[in-house]
């Protein structure tokens, strides 16, 4: 799709920027990457009233063009880089009307870059309620920019905003806000001359930020550094002077255009909620209660939809076998692909519910309070209050969580957070745990309300948090700090969650899971099916010949004969040989060669374990009976002892292995992307594998 005009959305965090983005683009959006950097680039298309098409780019929320974190640094790069393909023709800057002063700082910076701007004044209702009156005409006249009052949540003013975007001028007409040149007159002049930059604020920003701007050549960057030396430019002092000048401008502007009624000091809603939610005792009680509720709900609410999906696949497998002629292809489809897929697809409900909870916690502003409450505790173990968000996000998936560590300004805090986040029980482990818990933990209610299986799962989640904290504590003494840590964070007012946003997140995440996991599962299932259905040399023929001898055909029932043949074939297949090869290494953990196959296939993605189990036990089992994976594994017998293959000791040892092992190719890749150094993912992989093996070993040896 080609757009006629490119529009960037810029604004502070918590101003409703994403809500406006959704309102403008609807479901017509996609997530990509900015060229050269790994920050998510959300773009979408919007039809303007004049028939043109606008591409809308949602830039990360920031308080200023001076980045404090990796995420924020993208904003100036996109706005300033002349070579960037994402460079916008127009900036829509969204301001929170109830909090104009701080919001206007970013406006004055963007305006001085002389890119055409339109102001969207959001949350007018909130401002009115707190006694703020804004003279919008005077405000627009003073700045000389179009100002559109909107309510992104209530979808008010969106059409006017689209109208304004389509009428917007190609040239920037806004008034200068401060006298930029006076901040560093000679330096700005010389940079302007040598780099052919006519905008003084752009030149000043180059002086401040040249070190991490990727669109400058090393020579250009060195030259700017030289000029700074010559003119004795002090970045922090210049920035301080600029900020003060900007706030002077803002104060004058607000004095003329905004009146605030001095309301009798009535405590705001938000404050009253905070009194309870960040209370010394109740604060933590409520936090843990919310987590408990979340995990119980994941189990309880997903039970029915999971059963539905499961029976759908059982029906599909049966139908395929009935309709298609029996043969290797049918078997591949039913026993390979469908069995593998069903093992994973049943977890869609749980993943959707988990992401819904996380998005509600973020949306309401509660996550910021958790950060506030936990900071001191987290600092003790070498983390940061802001590490709580990636850690809780880690319950969903380590990949976006590791990307979200970009909001942590301090290098050491960020590295430790990245190193321990994959220990947190992610949604890919959920299928493995659910299956194993269902196998060995009785479905029973204890102490009146708690489901024993739910408790076991909660235990696994708690264990993962504890292990993350212990590892962080150790790393705190190993890593050396590079810069001083600080913690300056806005506590946004409490809001109702935007339900359509929650629904959109659920849909997005479930879709991403189905597509990503689905691709891997299908290919792994096919490979696995081939490996399990064929063997080296003529072993399979020998087995067939062996069982044609009368001593078997006469004494055994046809059913039993088939089962023996299938079982012996699996053991002699490529997969079986592979499993047998690693068996000596995993026997101390209590695993046989079949589990060994699953360990190998789930090496790149944990959730494959379930699919593999399904495939292995389909090939192994009675071809006429189609059971769910759980039943198949329940019936599984150890080929040597004849005892059930999945005892409590084996299942717990497996759960420990999956709790600590780094079986996720995507996480390894994202850790490399975020750290730009192979030693980080390598170290992470090594420590996690050692932990996984030792703890699984101890668990099995103690319990067996």
């Amino acid at each position, binding site marked *: 799709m080609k757009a006629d005009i490119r529009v960037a959305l810029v604004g502070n965090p918590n101003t409703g920027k994403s809500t406006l983005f959704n309102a403008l683009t609807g479901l017509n959006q996609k997530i990509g990457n900015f060229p050269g950097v790994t920050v998510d680039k959300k773009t979408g298309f919007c039809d303007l009233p004049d028939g043109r098409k606008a591409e809308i780019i949602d830039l990360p929320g920031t*308080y*200023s063009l*001076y980045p*404090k974190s990796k995420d924020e640094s993208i904003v100036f790069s996109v706005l300033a880089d002349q070579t960037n393909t994402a460079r916008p023709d127009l900036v829509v800057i969204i301001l929170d009307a*109830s*909090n*104009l*002063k*701080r919001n206007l*700082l970013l406006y004055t910076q963007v305006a001085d870059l002389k890119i055409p701007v339109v102001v969207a004044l959001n949350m007018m209702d909130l401002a009115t309620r707190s006694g703020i009156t804004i003279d919008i005409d005077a405000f627009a006249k003073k700045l000389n920019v179009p100002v559109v009052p909107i309510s992104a949540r209530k979808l008010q003013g969106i059409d006017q905003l689209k109208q304004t975007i389509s009428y917007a001028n190609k040239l920037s007409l806004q008034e200068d806000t401060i006298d930029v040149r006076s901040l560093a007159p000679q330096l700005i002049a010389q940079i302007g001359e040598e780099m052919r930059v006519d905008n003084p604020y752009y030149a000043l920003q180059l002086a401040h930020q040249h070190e991490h701007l990727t669109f400058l050549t090393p020579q250009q960057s060195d030259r700017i550094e030289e000029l700074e030396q010559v003119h004795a430019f002090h970045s*922090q*002092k210049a*920035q*301080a002077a600029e*900020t*003060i000048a900007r*706030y002077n401008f803002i104060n004058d502007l607000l004095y003329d255009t905004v009146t605030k009624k001095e309301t009798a000091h009535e405590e705001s809603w*938000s*404050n009253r909620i*905070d*009194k309870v939610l*960040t*209370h*010394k*005792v109740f*604060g*933590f009680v409520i936090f843990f209660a919310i987590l408990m509720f979340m995990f119980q709900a994941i189990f309880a609410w997903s039970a029915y939809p999971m059963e539905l999906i499961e029976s759908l696949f059982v029906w599909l497998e049966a139908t395929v076998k009935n309709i298609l002629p029996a043969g290797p292809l049918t078997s591949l489809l039913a026993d390979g692909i469908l069995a593998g897929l069903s093992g994973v697809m049943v977890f869609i409900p749980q993943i959707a519910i988990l992401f819904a909870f996380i998005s509600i916690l973020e949306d309401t502003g509660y996550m910021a309070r958790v950060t*506030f*409450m936990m*900071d*001191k*505790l987290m600092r003790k173990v070498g983390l940061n*209050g802001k590490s709580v968000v990636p850690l809780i996000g880690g319950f969903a998936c380590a990949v976006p969580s590791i990307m979200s560590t970009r909001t942590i300004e301090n290098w050491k805090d960020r590295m430790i957070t990245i190193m321990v986040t994959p220990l947190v029980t992610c949604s890919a482990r959920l299928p493995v745990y659910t299956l194993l818990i269902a196998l060995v933990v009785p479905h029973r209610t204890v102490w009146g309300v708690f489901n024993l299986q739910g408790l076991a799962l909660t235990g696994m989640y708690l264990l993962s948090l504890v292990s993350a904290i212990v590892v962080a504590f150790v790393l705190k003494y190993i890593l050396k700090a590079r810069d*001083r840590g*600080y*913690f*300056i*964070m*806005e*506590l*946004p*007012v409490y809001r109702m969650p935007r339900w359509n946003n929650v629904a959109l997140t659920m849909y997005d995440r479930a879709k991403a899971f189905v597509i990503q996991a689905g691709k891997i599962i299908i290919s792994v299932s096919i490979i696995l099916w081939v490996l399990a259905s064929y063997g080296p040399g003529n072993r399979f023929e020998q087995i067939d010949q062996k069982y044609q001898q009368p001593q078997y055909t006469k004494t055994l029932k046809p059913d039993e004969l088939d089962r023996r043949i299938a079982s012996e074939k699996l053991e002699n297949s490529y997969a079986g040989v592979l499993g047998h090869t690693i068996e000596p290494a995993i026997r101390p953990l209590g695993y046989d060669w079949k589990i060994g196959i699953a360990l190998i296939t789930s090496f790149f993605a944990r959730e494959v374990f379930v699919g593999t189990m399904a495939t292995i036990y389909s090939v192994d089992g009675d071809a006429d009976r189609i059971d769910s994976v759980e039943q198949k594994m329940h019936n599984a017998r150890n080929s040597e002892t004849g005892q059930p293959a999945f005892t409590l000791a084996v299942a717990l040892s497996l759960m420990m292995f999956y709790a600590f092992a780094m079986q996720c190719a995507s996480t390894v890749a994202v850790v490399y992307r975020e750290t730009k150094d192979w030693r980080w993912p390598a170290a992470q992989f090594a420590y996690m594998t050692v932990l996984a093996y030792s703890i699984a070993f101890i668990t099995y040896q103690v319990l067996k």
Partner: protein
Amino acid sequence: MKLSQLKVGKKGIVKGFTDLEMSVKLMEMGCLPGEEVTVERVAPLGDPIAINVSGYQLSLRKREASTIILL
């Protein structure tokens, strides 16, 4: 007096900073000389604190608050 010494519920006016690096970050967030600040609450474990400044709530650690001098 430093902001870190201000009791919960009390107001003060920012006079200046003792640390340039911190001051740049705080001023961007609307916490600059002449602004009125109110200590709203202290985190359950005694640190960080939440203050009201420029019409919104900002949380910062006591160490950072101690770089803010009040009138």
